């Protein structure tokens, strides 16, 4: 159910870029957009994101599958704004009891929903096309991240799919020992909580042993580390970041020119 493997078609031109470059490009692209509340800039950004998707080797169906929780979030934002908007200027569209939906409210809500999609998609694209090991390597080699932390985090991240397996084992162990909850919802909740706790305890024990195993192989022994897998940051990687900045800037510029730009604060 939880999938952490990259899904990109191997060899896609942008998926092959340095992971740090992809990360930086996505961050820059997203956070330029967070500055505005209008719907135009994010709409342009989403169009750009969908257009470059094939270059990352991600199929549209895959993106849709990974992005569906976003739609739930978008719904939540819409409802909140309809109920609690402070500024209810503009022509009234719907009036039902305390709910007063005006055009102003709808435009703000639309802007927010588009913005959330525009901001979130780059993250999905980066993680869908990047292997965790490569990311850790690149963070160490190209972004000067502390190696001990990057590798410790990577080693722990490997436990994600194992946790699911472990959950099944714990449930089976309990069943074998005569522990189950039947149909009683309270008993079910208690069993759920105690299984989750057992999972956490198991994860910590595993982590403790993992740390010992890492020490046993000379991790953190003071010797300077070498790297077996070289990650290079090339001109093309720099261009990716520049391109992302330029595109996001252009989206903002269009919004300013059209007069729809609304800064986040002010």
């Amino acid at each position, binding site marked *: 159910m939880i999938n952490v493997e990259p899904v990109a078609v191997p060899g896609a031109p942008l998926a092959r870029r340095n992971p740090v470059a992809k990360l930086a490009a996505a*961050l820059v692209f997203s956070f330029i957009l967070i500055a505005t509340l209008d719907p135009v800039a994010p709409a342009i950004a989403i169009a750009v994101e969908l257009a470059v998707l094939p270059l990352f080797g991600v199929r549209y169906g895959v993106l849709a599958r990974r992005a569906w*929780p976003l739609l739930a979030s978008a719904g939540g934002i819409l409802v909140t704004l309809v109920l*609690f908007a*402070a500024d209810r200027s503009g022509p009234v569209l719907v009036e039902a009891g305390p709910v007063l939906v005006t055009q102003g409210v709808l435009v703000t809500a639309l802007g927010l929903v588009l913005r959330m999609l525009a901001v979130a998609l780059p993250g*999905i694209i980066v993680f869908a096309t990047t292997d965790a090991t490569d990311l850790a390597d690149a963070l160490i080699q190209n972004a000067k991240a502390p190696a001990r932390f990057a590798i410790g985090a990577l080693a*722990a*991240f490997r436990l994600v799919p194992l946790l699911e397996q472990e959950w099944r084992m714990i449930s089976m162990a309990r069943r074998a020992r005569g522990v189950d909850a039947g149909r009683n919802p309270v008993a079910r909740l208690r069993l759920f909580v105690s299984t989750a706790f057992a999972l956490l305890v198991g994860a910590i024990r595993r*982590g403790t042993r993992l740390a010992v195993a890492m020490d046993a192989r000379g991790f953190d022994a003071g010797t300077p580390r070498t790297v077996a897998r070289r990650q290079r940051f090339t001109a093309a990687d720099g261009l990716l970041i520049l391109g992302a900045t330029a595109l996001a800037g252009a989206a903002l510029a269009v919004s300013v020119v059209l007069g729809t730009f609304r800064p986040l604060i002010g």
Partner: protein
Amino acid sequence: MDNNNRWRTIDIVIASVLGVAFGVIFWAWGLLWNGPADAIPLPGRAVLYGVWLVPAVLGALVVRKPGAAFYTLTFAALVSVALGTSWGWTIVVQGPLEAAAGELAFALFAYRTYRLPVALLAATLAGLAASIYDVFVWYPGTAWGSFRLPYILLTAASSLVVAGLGSVALTRALANTGALDRFPAARDRAPI
């Protein structure tokens, strides 16, 4: 003292493991938050908010090193992004922000005490940071009186209870299982 503040391998790995575990929990919690929990409209739903902030306090209480709160919550946020949460990417900024607020509490006490009051303070600060970020970035244009203030207060309270009290209780329960035997949190158990 210096040496005491250096992270051992086990500190890094366990903080990361807690991050991974809570990353998965965040991922599941996000589905709940935007699914069944939608039945409780905002700002009321903020009573559930504390769960997002648990790793900041728990990480610090278990590992007891400078940066533990910051690292654990930040990594948990990154893991949940990698798994695909509904807020996607933006958590990459929000996570560290809340985490830094929680970290501040432990820093104020020079990383010397990890008792209940400090944990509660850390949780509350993290909750405030999180909800203030939310109202500006996610709920701009909402009214202060009917939405923003209740939202911020409820979040802080939820964080105090769930992340503060909850983390202290969870740390104690974990120590009782013997899983934390290599950490100061477990130092006071009787030998067998």
